[in-house]
């Protein structure tokens, strides 16, 4: 946070003084976009960052966009699924993103305001009506967020012109009276109550390491790689397809009913057929497969907690892989009823690649990760970029956030890896045991920040934006 300049200046008259109006917090991620009011402990509006596209019959160029869980899970004719975010966790399609965010905000949080009571035509016009209900600035009102300041999050590597897009949408499209842009890593530290922390965020598209010192991001220490949720999903796809015989992932929408079958026996289900030309696009299927895979991650996948790596040797000399084979498996049933006991080795194997690149499954479309992409390597290279004196402090305040860190054993394993890499330092981790807090760490941090009384002096007001243009973000939101 750029407190330095801002807090030393006395608040001037034009500054936004919005203690009364709740600020909004918008936290876009690759899998979901989170929006809600500052001061609340969970975002009220959680909308997939995926959206649906229906090509128009007549003019193929025109497509209808669908937002929100209610509409993008229905296998409508020729529906395809896209994402407003890019594979590296930044916004890719700003135009659609603006619409999707607006949907997230207006569908659950704000609304088009009712007309003032005075003129709303109640049958009894003699009723005394308090003055403050009347609102001025009609054109402001027509914009969806004419009253709410907006705090938006961005990834630690968001840069250049992309940093200015957010304020432009907020001010121009939405009519926000004030804006702030914050790094999501910093906010996650905030949510855990740490002014200084090493934040490890494992989301869908990226795993990132953000060193935070006294509430300020240490930008050169930010490291990231794609070994996150989507990577694990693809590891699972590889695991299934390399099985003998291969295990198909048939998402729910393709099944009308299933019949119980024995473990390993072929599925007996009635499948949904689509009339030729109305089949959903493969991207829809891919999106629906994610639902199955997330369920698989939740109920089957486990992190190998050592000692040592899964590919290593135990103290007794045997391989850890052999040891893992002795561990119990877990059953999983696919939407078509096919089910099997998944051996422990598979359960560990699916995620081991995040810690040990050599253990990752790969094929032509999924090249093996490089050694520098594993979580341990990312932390090392992050730390190597920050002041030596600060390193122990950061290692003692590791904050773990993001839904893909939820695997059983994840923090234990990371602790081991780091303790082995930094034997002389005391490694300590904070990871919320509440799924909601783990998943929405950066949003919650934003909620805390934007509701602080002292934060009001930081907001970039509409007036400042009008004076200085969008470049003001780069100056103020460090």
């Amino acid at each position: 946070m750029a407190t330095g300049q801002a807090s030393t200046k006395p608040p001037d008259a034009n500054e936004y003084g919005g203690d009364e109006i709740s600020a909004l917090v918008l936290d876009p991620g690759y899998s979901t976009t989170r929006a809600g009011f500052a001061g609340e402990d969970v975002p009220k509006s959680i909308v997939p960052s995926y959206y649906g596209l229906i090509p128009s019959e007549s003019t193929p160029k025109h497509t209808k966009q669908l937002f929100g869980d209610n509409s993008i899970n229905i296998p409508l004719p020729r529906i395809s699924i896209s994402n407003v975010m890019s594979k590296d966790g930044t916004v890719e399609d700003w135009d659609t993103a603006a619409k999707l965010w607006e949907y997230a905000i207006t569908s659950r949080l704000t609304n088009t305001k009712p007309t003032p009571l005075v003129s709303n035509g109640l049958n009894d016009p003699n009723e005394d009506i308090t003055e403050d209900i009347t609102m001025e600035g009609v054109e402001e009102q027509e914009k969806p967020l004419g009253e709410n300041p907006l705090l938006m999050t961005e990834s630690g590597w968001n840069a250049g012109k992309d940093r200015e897009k957010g304020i432009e949408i907020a001010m121009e499209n939405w009519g926000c009276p004030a804006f702030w842009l914050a790094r999501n890593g910093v906010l996650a530290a905030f949510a855990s109550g740490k002014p200084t922390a090493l934040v490890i965020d494992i989301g869908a598209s990226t795993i990132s390491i953000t060193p935070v010192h006294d509430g300020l991001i240490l930008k050169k220490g930010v490291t990231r790689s794609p070994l996150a949720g989507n990577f694990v999903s693809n590891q699972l796809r590889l695991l299934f397809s390399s099985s003998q015989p291969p295990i198909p992932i048939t998402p729910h929408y393709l099944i009308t009913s299933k019949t119980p079958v024995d473990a390993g026996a072929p599925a007996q289900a009635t499948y949904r057929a689509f009339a030729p030309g109305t089949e959903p696009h493969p991207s829809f299927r891919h999106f629906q497969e994610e639902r199955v895979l997330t369920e698989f991650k939740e109920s089957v996948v486990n992190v190998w907690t050592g000692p040592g790596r899964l590919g290593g040797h135990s103290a007794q000399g045997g391989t850890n892989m052999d040891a893992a084979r002795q561990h119990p498996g877990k059953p999983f049933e696919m939407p078509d009823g096919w089910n099997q006991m998944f051996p422990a080795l598979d359960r560990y194997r699916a995620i081991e690649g995040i810690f040990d690149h050599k253990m990752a499954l790969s094929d032509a479309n999924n090249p093996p990760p490089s050694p520098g992409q594993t979580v341990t390597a990312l932390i090392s290279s992050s730390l190597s970029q920050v002041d030596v004196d600060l390193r122990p402090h950061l290692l003692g305040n590791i904050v773990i956030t993001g839904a893909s860190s939820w695997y059983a054993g994840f923090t234990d394993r990371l602790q081991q890896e780091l303790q082995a890499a930094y034997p002389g330092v005391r490694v300590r981790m904070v990871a919320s045991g509440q799924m909601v807090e783990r998943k929405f760490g950066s949003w919650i941090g934003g909620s805390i920040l934007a509701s602080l009384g002292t934060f009001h002096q930081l907001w970039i007001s509409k007036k400042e934006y009008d004076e200085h243009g969008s470049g003001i973000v780069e100056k103020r939101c460090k």
Partner: protein
Amino acid sequence: MFPAEKKGEWEATKIRERKATNTPNKTEANGQADADITMGEANGTSDGQAAAEDQEDDPKFEEDPTSEEGAVYPLQDGRIVDWSCFFALLTHIYNTMGPPFHTPILVISQPTWTAQDHESLTQFIFEKFKTPAFCLMDSALAVCYAYATPTATVVDVGYTKCDVTAVNDFLVSDLGRGSALPRCGGEAMTQRLHDLIGGKGFTNDVCEQLKKSPICEILPPGTDMPAEAEANAHVSNPAAAASTGASGSGAGQRGSLAAQGGAARGPGINTEVGDADEDREFKEGEDDEGVLDVAAIVASGKTSEFLAKKEREKAAKAAAKKDAADAAAVAKERSLPNSKRVKATFHYHERRPLEELNMNGKRAMDGETGQDGGEPKRQKTPEPGVDSGAQTTENAAATRREERKEERRRNREGTAFIRKSADVGLERFQAASGGILDQIADAIHRCILSYPDISKRSDLWDSLIILGNGFKEALIGTLNSRYLISPSSATIFTSELPSNFTTPVATGANTPQPQHHPPSHHGPGVNPLLLAATTASNPNLAPPGQSQQQLHQQLQLQQYHQQQLQQTHQHSSHAQTPTSIKLLKMPDYFPEWKEVGMEEAGFLGAQVAAKVVFVVDQGISKGFMSRTEYNELGPQGIHESCL
């Protein structure tokens, strides 16, 4: 509501000039009552529509309580789309009930209402009604109150939309909530019927009546559709028919299906095939039995001259023959439950402009209503076999008297109802075949699988509440056949594995707990904002639901026995859900609601809740917002107390 003369003002009923012409349709005046409103100490009813009748005699204008022409519906899919109209509706309801001056108000909020909507509504209620206390309660939570359960998955199928909500420990989960699934309400089912048989001349209005008639059922998935030869097969086996008549699911029916090799056809697939069959059946019906051909009747409703002659003559002629010849057929048909019959007859009202009827003459009308069996009552399979002959004559006389009276009344108003009956084929089982059940089922699956506390998901699957009539079994059937995880035969082998190794489940429990009070170790240049935040003394971030949870727990103890939730978890090595799917039992402390069904459970729950919130708890747990709080905090304060 209806727009009044002056723009922005509203009337509760249609006002029109006296020498009015025809009004096309009749339904209730106020439109969908998506917002339930409870006034006072849980003893009010919200029937705002009742007020329609009392009118002053104005020489120029009159109210038409039956017209919905030009009506504005302030709520669409639960969303408030016309605030002025919505406020007028609230005012109308309030005035109709005329509560004493200091009456607290509870409003059930729709899941689609936004935080800002809550504020606007709060402001209106306090400013306009001068209420001393206001409680805004989530609709799903209100339902939980009716069922006296802290945990449930509430599936509320409404008029045009459906809401799916997971509630755990009286806290509504926003994650994965299916708010207002579009085109998933009762209206969509009517529409589907219309799509299927509208081509045969059934109007939307008739389809609505068909949907509500006992012959329209939504069969659970996998139920065999009756096939054409069915009826005969049964007659040839009277013993079987007799033995299964009571339960409607005996071996006899199944045997007969097997006998004719009936291909199993579930509702929702092969709709086109059903259509083709149906066309043929309709023609057969016309020729063989002299049953009124529906298509012709209704089509003639549009081309009235044709109706005048052909149709009436035929009907009159047929009436006598029909009575006799059909008696046997009807009797044998009636011995079959509805779901086993290819065709079934239902009775409906059709509203017609008067001129048309005058042209046709009264005789035709009588002929048409001759077979009327009285007001159709909602009835489930199996239908009891009745002595149709006696009943018909008796009823017919009564109905005719009624009809004449009704007609005279209608004559004054320019329209009349005529009673009709029609045969409907297999389409009557396909009201939900347009994918509604699939969509709702999928939303339930998504909702529960988004619930963040994985260990609670089984409970949510085992405590479904489905509000809405006629499709519960079918929906449960769909859920079972699509999502139920069967006990895996693979788990047998787990017992052979070393049992001393427990598999950790991904609950995050094995991870370090969060530090809410971090060590106050701050360097000199610490960000003051962070300092404030990290000292954990941030009043703005109130742990929501904490005080409310206390309230609920307290209420729970005071009001009911603690719901015995299944403490004995099924021992399964599955971490996946659902391994079972159950409907929550209907509460039995309000016997009078049992008959009506729990469709309005939200209202019932709100009555219970209002009593508890306003009277028992007296605001100790912040269940409502008081006038003083409103004056202090303004409309925004509602977020701190809305439930």
